[in-house]
């Protein structure tokens, strides 16, 4: 896939924003898992700017910024990279109507479950911790945030994004 300069810039900025926000708000940590009030940024970024931009921004932000800054880089890296990529990628593909909060909530919540599956799957594959414990923890930390905050954030931002001509579904047509 060939990226346009605008997409590259949005990935860079999204990664910094997501990574930094995750790191700044990781007040509560349970083992490898932190409660992430900033998790919605991944979904919102994908819904607004497209699946690849959202996915890559979330993956880079989580693995190469948040994990590096917190000193966890490399441990859950693969699972975290793929899981967070999915959290930015899937809602963008699945949300057809950006004004429908039901769609946004549903698919953002679903993407949190997929993310949890990859993180817990990788960790349990490495035999670091039991699958269900991690799966439940990641789901509990990401689903409420994604379900509540993503529609609010998208509602606030969509107008500004559309005015700038950056909304991905309109930009590509």
């Amino acid at each position, binding site marked *: 896939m060939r990226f346009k300069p605008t997409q590259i810039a949005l990935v860079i900025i999204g990664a910094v924003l997501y990574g930094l926000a995750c790191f700044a708000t990781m007040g509560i940590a349970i083992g490898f898992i932190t409660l992430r*009030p900033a998790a919605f940024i991944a979904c919102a970024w994908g819904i607004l700017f497209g699946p690849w931009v959202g996915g890559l921004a979330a993956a*880079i932000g989580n693995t190469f*910024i948040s994990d590096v800054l917190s000193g966890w880089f490399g441990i859950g890296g693969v699972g975290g990279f793929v899981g967070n990529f999915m959290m930015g990628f899937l809602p963008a593909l699945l949300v057809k109507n950006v004004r429908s909060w039901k769609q946004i909530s549903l698919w953002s919540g679903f993407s949190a479950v997929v993310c949890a599956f990859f993180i817990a799957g990788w960790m349990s594959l490495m035999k670091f911790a039991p699958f269900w414990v991690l799966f439940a923890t990641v789901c509990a930390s990401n689903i409420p945030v994604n379900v509540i905050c993503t529609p609010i954030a998208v509602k606030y931002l969509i107008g500004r994004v559309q005015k700038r001509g950056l909304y991905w579904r309109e930009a590509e047509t």
Partner: protein
Amino acid sequence: MASVIQMMETAKTVSPIHKLNPLAKALWLLCIIIIPIITFNPFVTLPIIAAIWLLAIPAKIRKPFYANLLKTYPVLIGFIVIIWPFFYKEGTHLLVNLGVVRITLEGIYFALAQGLRIAVAVTGCLFFIMVTDIMDLASALGAMLQRRLKISYTIPLMLVSSFKFLPEFMTSFDAIRQAFLTRGFELDKGGLGERIKKFVPLFIPLIDTTINKAQHISTAMQLKAFGIKKERVFFVEYKVRLADYLFVLVGILIVAFAIWGDAVLLGGFNL
């Protein structure tokens, strides 16, 4: 946030280990990450952890490294050590037996071994981060991918650039947070749902500012004809020296030690 600045500054320290090729250090880290996959024998993992702690001396990062580890260990390892005894079904020396909940001495031993296994990865990763400038790593990786594998430098560029913008964003985030706090916005009060909701208005101005920034970056890239030439040139060339080979060799020897220790059940560990 101060810890982030400290971490980034630590990676810029001048020491024999900081001077090594970033790719050599990445290979060394790869070796360390492999170890918890190979074994969780504490008679193997403990000496490896001790060796990494000792490496902090020539790297001149003793104080920040040890302080960071002492903060990280209880959070990361504590969880594993607490959880595993409940899931360990084998073992004959019963300590607690409540029907469904069954904790054995072997279970606790197993949990401690699992904790040490995590400690190897955590210690190695933190050491790597504190002795490697991530921008150097991304740049060296980009050069290697382009020259050897003919892979585009777009992804390494994304990594390098995101690290370049980190301090600027930290300042913006802090300014917005302070602005909210001075208006009496209580971020830390209320139930979980309420607190999560409160974070949204905090991020909206930040996201809005960042979208502006993205447009500026995009314009700058287009003005500089980004992507016109297939191959880019690199400002810094990272040479591979004897010390780099030796450092990678140390990593390989550590892996060999782990394989051997696991095969011979070093220390009689057979869980």
